[in-house]
């Protein structure tokens, strides 16, 4: 039973609030749960991962994993904007349960008016390079690499290509073959193979929802998580520099350290601005036009760059202690790096965005950039 205090039904293509303008009940609820059950230091000390089940249970009871699923399909019907803000908060805590993945899966299923089941989900494919096909009998086949939290998922939301176009399906995870893997942030990133798997339910995707749409939604979700992780990396790096003493003064008093932290602030700011702008663009989009494409692709590219540059500075400021497994810094820095790879890397999106810009022509570049 899911009870969401904000219970409003908003679907894709509806007009929502901007992330920053959204009422923050969703975020406040989530932050309280994260603070209670996902404290990075507590989690980092817990070698048995006994924190995972209570955290997931609390998030589920609050209706958060199905934020993007309307009430009548079993979700809590939060707006796209509120869901994006929630993912930004999850990034600030480097949350390592399939929250983003289940949200995306619920969102994808809802596009075809498929109800979401209870429990953890993830989406297939999770890379623009992979493809699932559907045959005449409605059976699904294909191999997807780098699927986040596939091992933990009870169901997959699948986007499949068939003779009659694009379909969206709900698949029982037990019917797929899943090879376990870990990404650079030590979270599950698995290879899933579907070999003529019959879905629980399959429906035609509505116009305007295709693999690119899914990748951009996933990419913006990851961008917000990266931006959140960078905010926390800035926060703990500033705090550390004000505590650590070297050469008889706090290292925050050294100009070289100050300037490094100023650059980290810049990277954190750029990631936040790019990600929240893209989230706002999607939340208010009527269709996936070039402007929304620019926003979403640019967010993934810029946030991935910030993960590298900003995370590097956070480690430099911390010195050796930040390189230890006991310290919480890696929970943010490695996860931010890992998130770069999901739903299309920055290299992928840069090529695609570059092609779009080139095909529009030189004199249409500025009108695109200045479109909002």
């Amino acid at each position, binding site marked *: 039973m899911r009870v969401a205090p904000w219970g409003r039904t908003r679907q894709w293509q509806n007009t929502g609030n*901007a*992330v*920053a*303008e959204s009422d923050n009940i969703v975020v406040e609820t989530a932050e309280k749960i994260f603070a209670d059950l996902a404290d990075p230091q507590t989690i980092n000390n817990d070698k048995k991962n006994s924190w995972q089940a209570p955290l997931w249970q609390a998030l589920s009871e609050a209706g958060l994993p199905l934020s993007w699923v309307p009430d009548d399909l079993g979700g809590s019907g939060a707006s796209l904007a509120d869901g994006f803000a929630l993912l930004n908060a999850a990034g600030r805590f480097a949350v390592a349960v399939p929250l983003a993945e289940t949200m995306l899966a619920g969102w994808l299923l809802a596009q075809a008016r498929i109800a979401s089941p209870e429990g953890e989900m993830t989406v297939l494919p999770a890379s623009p390079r992979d493809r699932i096909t559907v045959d005449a009998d409605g059976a699904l086949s294909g191999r997807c690499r780098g699927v986040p939290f596939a091992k933990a998922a009870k169901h997959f939301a699948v986007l499949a290509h068939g003779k009659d176009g694009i379909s969206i399906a709900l698949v029982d995870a037990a019917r797929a073959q899943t090879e376990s893997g870990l990404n650079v942030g030590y979270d599950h990133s698995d290879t899933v193979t579907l070999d003529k798997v019959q879905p629980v339910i399959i429906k035609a995707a509505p116009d305007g929802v295709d693999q690119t749409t899914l990748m951009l939604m996933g990419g913006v979700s990851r961008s917000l998580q990266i931006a959140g992780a960078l*905010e926390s990396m*800035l*926060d703990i790096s*500033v*705090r550390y*520099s*004000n505590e650590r003493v070297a050469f008889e003064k706090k290292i*925050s*008093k050294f*100009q070289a350290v*100050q*300037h490094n*932290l*100023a*650059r980290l*602030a*810049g990277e*954190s*700011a*750029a990631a*936040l*601005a*790019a990600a*929240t*702008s893209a*989230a*706002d*663009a999607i939340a*208010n989009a009527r269709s996936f036009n070039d402007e929304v494409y*620019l*926003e979403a*692709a*640019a967010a993934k*590219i*810029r946030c991935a*760059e910030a993960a590298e540059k900003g995370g590097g500075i956070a480690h430099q400021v911390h010195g050796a202690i930040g390189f230890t497994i006991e310290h919480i810094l890696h929970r943010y820095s490695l996860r931010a790096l890992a998130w770069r790879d999901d739903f299309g890397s*920055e*290299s992928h*999106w*840069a*090529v*695609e*965005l*570059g*092609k779009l*810009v*080139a*095909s529009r*022509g*030189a*004199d249409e*570049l*500025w009108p695109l*950039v*200045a479109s*909002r």
Partner: protein
Amino acid sequence: MTAALRFDPIRLPEKCEQLRKEVRAFLADEIAAGTFDPHKPNREDTDAPEFSRRVGAKGWLGMTWPKKYGGQERSFLERYVVTEEMRVANAPTRRFFVADRQSGPVLLKYAPEHIKMDILPRICRGEVCFAIGMSEPNSGSDLFAANTRATKTDGGYLINGTKIWTSSAHIADYMIAIFRTSPPTKENRRHGLTQFLVKMKQPGIKVNPIGQITGQYEFNEVVFTDFFVPDDHVLGEVDGAWKQATSELAYERSGPERFLETYYVLTELVRAVGPNPDTRSAEGIGRLVAQLHTMRRMSVSVAGMLQAGKEPVVEASIVKDIGTVWEQQLPHRVRDLAAFVEETATNRETLERQLDFAIKTAPKLTIQGGTTEVLRGIIARGLGLR
């Protein structure tokens, strides 16, 4: 959170987009009439007084100021649109740019009424050019080391000393400058400087042009010898200029001019690679566009916060830090990507000529209007490190 940086995703209101169309149409007409060539940023004569008057006649100068001073009482976001369109078109804005962005707002805040009534409407009409007198031979980033003296005399002050790197001083009608009216105190080394309005083109002021590595003459040395400034030209508190400088910097530091100065080479690169770029060019262009887009969204966000009456000083410094580093690197990245452009590309020569100029322009971008080092110091203070 220690930092709590904010970059709200501002959407420009509908009236901005209408205005943008008007500005584009105006600039297209000016280009057609031969006023300037948008593909030639390296023009030798950057002063365009007639163009300045025509921009003024459109109501696009001092457009946020009160109507009684000739302004339009429009929003900062509207001004933002005008500024970015002018910049992207490489329009010759030198004559009015400083007055519109910086000097006018200072006069609005600190000048006596009769001076406001005299000068502000003329800025709005595009008739007057301003310079800013900050740096001196021994005082650059360290503003409070300024030593050009303003000595009290009957009815005003006598100015003696030298300002340097003063852009547009050779064409300027006025300068807003800081001069030393008292020595610094032990407790506050920032004490003792006063902001003045200076009428240029008078005896007692000598302007010596200084050549730049781009081949242009834009900045100058300005020597004051017993130059008289009347009492009513003091702007704000005597000895208290340091209190006046900081909040206005957010306007100066976050505008589109802080990342668009070399933008033209990116447009020209896109033209050169054509509609079907190879993977390398596509990726390079995609990254640059993503970075550009992000900076513009940050910059628009700061403009929106300014419009809402906030003072995003740290955010503005971040925009200038990231923006100027980017526009400085841009010509070099474009050069990398242009290495394999087809010999047959029709704009090859234009691109090469532009790159040549942009590469020579690049070093100044992280120095003018507050060096990268100064900006990072401000950001560090905002983070609670100083």
